[in-house]
């Protein structure tokens, strides 16, 4: 039973991590699909969401309202980011675009130090956090929240992209921007919209993880890079595959940490990334057709 409960425990934390990565990874995919830009500042949206939410709660704003407000605020920041940086530089080379989004993430990190300092801040759990015991493994309600919210949001996004007009317009921009323009869809607006949505979802991911691991100005970088790995495993353009990739990475990390070494978990994760890139760069779940590299 000992082994089984340990496995369960690791699975729980892996799923929680995976849920967070999934939310950020989907943001990557949405922006990449619409604009062709891989946004290295994506993780910072989670950081901003977490810290904004904590500040609002400290101002006695009810938690649920604080979460919503921080999503709105970060989404607005995302919009400004798209207009001022991404949109202005959209015709630059890939290298320049990478550095620009990195520059934005550096600026946002500095801004966070300016506002919140470097101390770890905490957010109370969404609900009473009495541990629940399943098969001798301990499950915290906040973990359930994390996975639950993530799953609900991801389902909503799937619905949005496949069944609503705006969502389908976004998809159309991806498939054929020229035809989309002929149909009266404005790809520029879609780009703005995509970044706003991704920023909002990223912020939500931040508020969800804050009660579990705390929040600091520099939390965005690693969250972002891990979500990246997830998105790559999913082939960068395929949201459901990126989500699967996110859970895979989360579970891989949790098990490496639990069974081997917490220090080496990054080695395992990134070796996995390199392996995928070298062997199957079109993504782990892609059908064996067309190449995109």
């Amino acid at each position, binding site marked *: 039973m000992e082994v089984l409960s340990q496995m369960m425990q690791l699975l729980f934390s892996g799923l929680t991590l995976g849920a967070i990565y999934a939310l950020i990874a989907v943001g990557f995919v949405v922006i990449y699909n619409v604009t062709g830009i*891989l946004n290295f500042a994506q993780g910072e949206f989670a950081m901003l969401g977490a810290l904004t939410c904590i500040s609002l709660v400290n101002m006695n704003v009810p938690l649920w309202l604080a979460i919503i407000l921080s999503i709105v605020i970060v989404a607005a920041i995302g919009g400004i980011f798209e207009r001022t*940086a991404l949109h*202005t*530089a959209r015709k*630059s*080379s*890939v*290298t*320049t675009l*990478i*550095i*620009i989004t*990195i*520059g*934005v*993430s*550096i*600026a*946002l*990190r*500095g*801004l966070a*130090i*300016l506002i919140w*300092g*470097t101390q770890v801040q905490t957010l109370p759990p969404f609900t009473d956090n009495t541990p629940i015991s399943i098969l001798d493994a301990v499950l915290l309600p906040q973990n359930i929240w994390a996975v639950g919210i993530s799953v609900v949001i991801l389902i909503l996004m799937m619905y949005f992209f496949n069944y609503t007009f705006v969502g389908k317009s976004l998809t159309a921009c991806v498939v054929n921007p020229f035809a989309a323009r002929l149909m009266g869809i404005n790809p520029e607006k879609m780009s703005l919209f995509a970044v706003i949505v991704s920023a909002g979802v990223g912020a939500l991911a931040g508020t969800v993880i804050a009660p579990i691991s705390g929040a600091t*100005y520099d939390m965005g*970088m690693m969250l972002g*890079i891990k979500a*990246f*790995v997830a998105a*790559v495993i999913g082939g*960068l353009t395929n949201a459901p595959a990126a989500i699967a990739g996110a859970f895979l990475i989360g579970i891989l990390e949790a098990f490496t940490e639990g069974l081997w*070494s917490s*220090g*080496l978990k*990054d*080695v395992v994760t*990134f*070796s996995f*990334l*390199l392996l995928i*890139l*070298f062997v199957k*760069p079109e993504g782990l779940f892609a059908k064996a057709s067309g190449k995109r*590299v």
Partner: protein
Amino acid sequence: MNSKSLKLIYNNSILGPIIFFVLLFCVPLVSSSNYLFSILTMVGFYALVCIGLTTLTGYAGQISLGHAAFYGIGAYSSAVLTGTYGLNPWVAIIIGAIISAVVALIVGIPTFKLKGYYLALATLGFGIIVYTLFKELSTITGGSNGFFGIPPISLFGFEFITDTSYFYLIWIFVFFAILFTRNIIHSRIGRGLRSIEGSEIAADAVGVNLMNYKLQIFVLSAIFASVSGSLLAHYVSFINPDLFVANTSIFFLIMVIMGGKGNIWGSIVGAAMYVLLDEILKHYVPMLLPNVGGQFEIVFFGILLVLTLIYMPDGLVPRFEKLISKFKKKTPTNGALQSTISANATGGDNK
């Protein structure tokens, strides 16, 4: 046709570099500020890395977000070989460079099959793996606590300990790196590299073995980074893994891009700009906002970087060159060509 005509294409004059370095090496005559020389030495370390990186990124158009790994491999090779095994620092530098070259070759073969974002991610991932290994292989590297007591480097009994002496040492390396790299750029090899950025398909069609070229230049840039890291280790005598995080790689790339990719002098300008900006922001910004702790000045750094890239996508040095050539164009050397061009160029010049 005689040898002079090559000058029409490449300015291979050694005069410019010599004047620059003579002036630089005269600085100790007018100042004895240790602070100044520690700054200039830092610029030298970064410039050496960037000279290599600019051949890779600026000329061949291949991004690397993992060069801190080679900087670190050089530093740790020197630290361990001299500190633990008592080897001569010069031997350690060479062994470090060989290790870096071999690692670059092994990693490069699968990596340079990738392009664009995938290449960026793969090199980023490689950098993080190497960083984590520095941290985790603590029996060899000292782990997060760092590696203490790296002996100073010496030559013919002279120990490079003071900031001023080290300033000379590192910049002599930079001088030769500049000449060596410039010679490469102004040759068959340089054209091969640039053709990759110009058009991969056309480069392939004129017989440039793309993979071979990318690998060669990746290895060369890894060697430069490694030597720089080795020299750093002997300079500071204490290193820890945090010197070689992913952010360091990112900052190297930022220096290259800010200075002007596609220009070797851009690496020095970029490195100098970075160090200068960093010092200025560290000193003056906290005066404006005295109550905040931490490195929040990076907010300005980030904004400046984004603005530079949006409004000067070619970087500082090419921008500067354009200004100069505007003045030069007034002189009639190119006049005939100019008129031919303007007569012919009725369209298609919108780039």
